């Protein structure tokens, strides 16, 4: 399955809905999307990963890159998912401590901490 991306604005947050597989082939598309959003002035991002079936270290690298970019503008990057499947790679790499992780988009959009 290829990668699907769509964005919408909720208040001062931009929600990026991601679906499919994020790997060495598709990750550059996600990187482009995040870079474009930050360049356009969206510094508070919520990446909804509920529709993601697969995520590898290349995808993690893109998310970390996105986090660095928004932090440079005192922004935030929050992740949303409920599935165990992609949690393992976050645990192995210790990135569960780096990203705020939420179980719903509503929760992520209203979070302020």
């Amino acid at each position, binding site marked *: 399955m290829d990668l699907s991306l769509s964005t919408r604005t909720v208040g001062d947050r931009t929600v990026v809905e991601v679906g499919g597989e994020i*790997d*060495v*082939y598709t990750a550059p598309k996600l990187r482009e999307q995040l870079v474009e959003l930050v360049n356009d002035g969206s510094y508070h991002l919520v990446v909804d990963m509920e529709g993601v079936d*697969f995520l*590898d*270290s290349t995808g993690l690298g893109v998310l970390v890159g996105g986090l660095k970019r928004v932090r440079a503008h005192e922004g935030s990057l929050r992740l949303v998912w409920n599935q165990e*499947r992609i949690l393992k790679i976050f645990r*192995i790499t210790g990135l569960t401590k780096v990203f705020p992780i939420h179980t719903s988009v509503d929760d992520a959009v209203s979070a302020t901490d």
Partner: protein
Amino acid sequence: MATVELLFSALPNHVRTARLVAAAVARRAGVDEAVLDEVRLAVGEACSRAVGLHVSNNVSAPVKVTLIEDEKKFSIQVADEVPHGPAAAQRNGRGETSGAVLDDAAAEEEDEMGLAVISGLVDDVEVKADETGGLIRMSWPTTTAAVLP
């Protein structure tokens, strides 16, 4: 005995194919369903790393994945043809510009991230490299009888 051998051009879009083939063969070999996601992730990481190495070193040879079914374990070997070792490092270092050095540093970082994920995922893993290329060998135990056709 090698059950399946897969050769693919070092292009990122083929890595998904390698993941699908490896997971399908692992399932048939009797690898636990709960572990198949780990097999997919580990073989994807190993293949992404090999593709990255081939691309950054202009190696036109294909990446080779060997899936081996033994009585009690299922092994995957991912081989690249990028020379490693001091002599190769010296060759690569000649005539580089600062941009190329930066690119190499980024590639190396991704390379190490992939290896870190593999080490975290797989209990039985071995990484070898010499002047003819690198090899990552990983194995998982198989449960009871393999799935019959």
